[in-house]
């Protein structure tokens, strides 16, 4: 796949862009709190028919997904009385003994053309009833994707809410080689696997934002030695500059219908929030204040934009209608509140809240105006909701390094996502509509 790079003034800056098949460091996930108390589920190792085991252990991927959600407790396989791999072998009594409430069985068998046939069934152990059962035929490199799809089906059948295992996360890594830093904008599966580098640069990258259809990322790159806004198709790798005015070009946020970007420009001397219509790049200025106005976030219905402003002296969260009218202040508690991001139901904002020099990921409940701290770590940044609203993903510092962390909206489950070496930051959770890169 080829990337169209526009001529760069600075040869040093960007080395390559697009989907490069480079070996990338994998984000590993460590669950730090809340593995117990989920629904007990038995996931039986999948059967097979090939001479060699399939390249991915599909059942293991499903088990890790469900455990990570905090809403399931996969049971220990050594206690299993039987190991069914098809419907006829299931004896529900065996699963009541181990106190499983749900049971997952399946198989991965070689199919024509080097592909694999994956089958799975989900049962309610006490009702002795099949809840779901599907069959897929896929290439070997799609086995993890199928496993995540199966996890999503299980999650939705048992919780009534959509799962986010098939979504992806975008983030920025920084690694030091010799005296230089190298920055990469990457996309990985929600479990950190299959990372792909979208862009690599020796100058900083920040603020990746997904288009609502999951095909494009807008982001800020310093490759011209100043903050310039780019948009890149993550399927084809094609990228273009969308704002390179004097001053700051930053803080991109897509309108829910994907037709407009809210962004921050300081071309008139001080940072203001603008709308850019993507069909013709026409700009409309929304704010007009000598203070800093930045970090716009759209409400899910597209009618409002929350943003950060220090017009009251300190950075606080404000809200306006999408035409810039009816500005009102939302946060009053705490010295510093910034970078708000809406939940999918529009009822909450996640933001960074600071007091006494400590900056925590927090939730603002809009109806009651209550501010709830989610963490006690002092250097949190860039929180955003998972598309199903159950988790908040943010960046923080751990052991002297930049890591990602996630916390369930109820605060019960916590995880760290970190690289073997280097820093990771600026996480952005993709929307549900994922587009798979062709491979």
């Amino acid at each position, binding site marked *: 796949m080829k990337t169209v790079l526009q001529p760069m003034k600075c040869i040093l800056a960007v080395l390559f862009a697009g989907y490069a098949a480079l070996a990338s460091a994998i984000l590993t996930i460590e669950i730090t709190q809340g593995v117990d108390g989920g629904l007990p589920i038995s996931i039986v190792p999948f059967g097979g028919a090939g001479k060699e085991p399939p390249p991915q252990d599909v059942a293991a991927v499903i088990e890790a997904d469900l455990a990570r959600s905090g809403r399931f407790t996969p049971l220990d396989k050594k206690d299993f009385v039987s190991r069914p791999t098809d419907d006829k072998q299931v004896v529900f009594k065996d699963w009541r003994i181990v106190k499983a409430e749900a049971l997952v069985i399946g198989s991965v068998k070689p199919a024509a053309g080097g592909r694999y046939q994956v089958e799975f069934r989900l049962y309610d152990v006490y009702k002795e009833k099949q809840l779901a059962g599907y069959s897929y035929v896929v290439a070997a490199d799609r086995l993890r994707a199928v496993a995540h799809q199966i996890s999503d089906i299980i999650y939705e059948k048992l919780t009534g809410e959509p799962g986010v295992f098939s979504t992806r996360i975008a983030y920025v890594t920084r690694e030091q080689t010799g005296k230089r830093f190298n920055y990469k904008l990457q996309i990985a599966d929600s479990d950190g696997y299959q990372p792909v580098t979208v862009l690599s640069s020796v100058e900083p990258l*920040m603020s990746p934002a997904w288009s609502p259809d999951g095909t494009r990322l807008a982001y800020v790159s310093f490759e011209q030695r100043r903050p310039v806004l780019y948009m890149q198709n993550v399927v084809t790798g094609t990228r273009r500059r969308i704002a390179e005015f004097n001053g700051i070009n930053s803080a991109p946020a897509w309108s829910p219908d994907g037709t407009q970007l809210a962004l921050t420009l300081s071309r008139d001397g001080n*940072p203001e929030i603008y709308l850019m219509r993507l069909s013709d790049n026409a700009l409309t200025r929304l704010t007009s204040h000598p203070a*800093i106005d930045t970090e716009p976030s759209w409400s899910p219905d597209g009618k409002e934009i929350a943003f950060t402003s220090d017009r009251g002296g300190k950075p606080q969260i404000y809200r306006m209608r999408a035409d810039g009218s009816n500005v009102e202040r939302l946060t009053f508690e705490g010295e510093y509140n910034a970078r708000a991001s809406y939940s999918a139901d529009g009822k909450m904002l996640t933001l960074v809240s600071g007091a006494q020099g400590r900056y925590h990921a927090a939730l603002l409940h809009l109806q009651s105006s209550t501010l709830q701290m989610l963490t006690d770590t002092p250097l949190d940044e860039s929180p955003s909701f998972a598309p199903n609203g159950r988790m908040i993903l943010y960046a923080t510092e751990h052991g002297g390094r930049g890591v990602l962390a996630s916390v369930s909206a109820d605060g019960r489950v916590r995880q760290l996502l970190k690289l073997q070496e280097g820093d990771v930051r*600026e996480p952005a959770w993709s929307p549900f509509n994922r587009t798979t890169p062709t491979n």
Partner: protein
Amino acid sequence: MDKKILFSLLGLAALALTACGGSEATKPAVEDKSVGAAGADTDAGVSGKSLDAKADLLAKRRVYFAFDSSAVDAENRAIVEAHAAYLAANKNIKVVLEGHTDERGTREYNLALGERRAQAVERMVKALGVSADRVKNVSYGEEKALAMDHTETAWALNRRVEIIY
């Protein structure tokens, strides 16, 4: 000041100079001795009078700020004034003012704050007779820290405007 920190800062300063091409065309006319100075370490314990106060000020190419502030205090103002006087007298030189913040708070707000700091210095330089077409400002926000520690000392060093020419 702690020796270890000083050494690592000197290393980082060197790194910043090599890594940042913005300064490659503009070899510093004077050596940067500002590490650990102004704002970062108010208790340096050194009070000897310099023989050439003006050259001393010109050697300092960083202006430091308090947290979430773009106000230039008297000590830092003297540095800006010395550079402005030099630039006013040498009309062929162009200057870039790079605004930076510490890592606390959010990246996008810090990008705006870094710009506000660079603009504060830019306004002073222009008021002192340097024409607008010779001055550019750019903000890196918190993206290019000089000191990597997560301490008050490191943060104080990172809240800066770099005067590059």
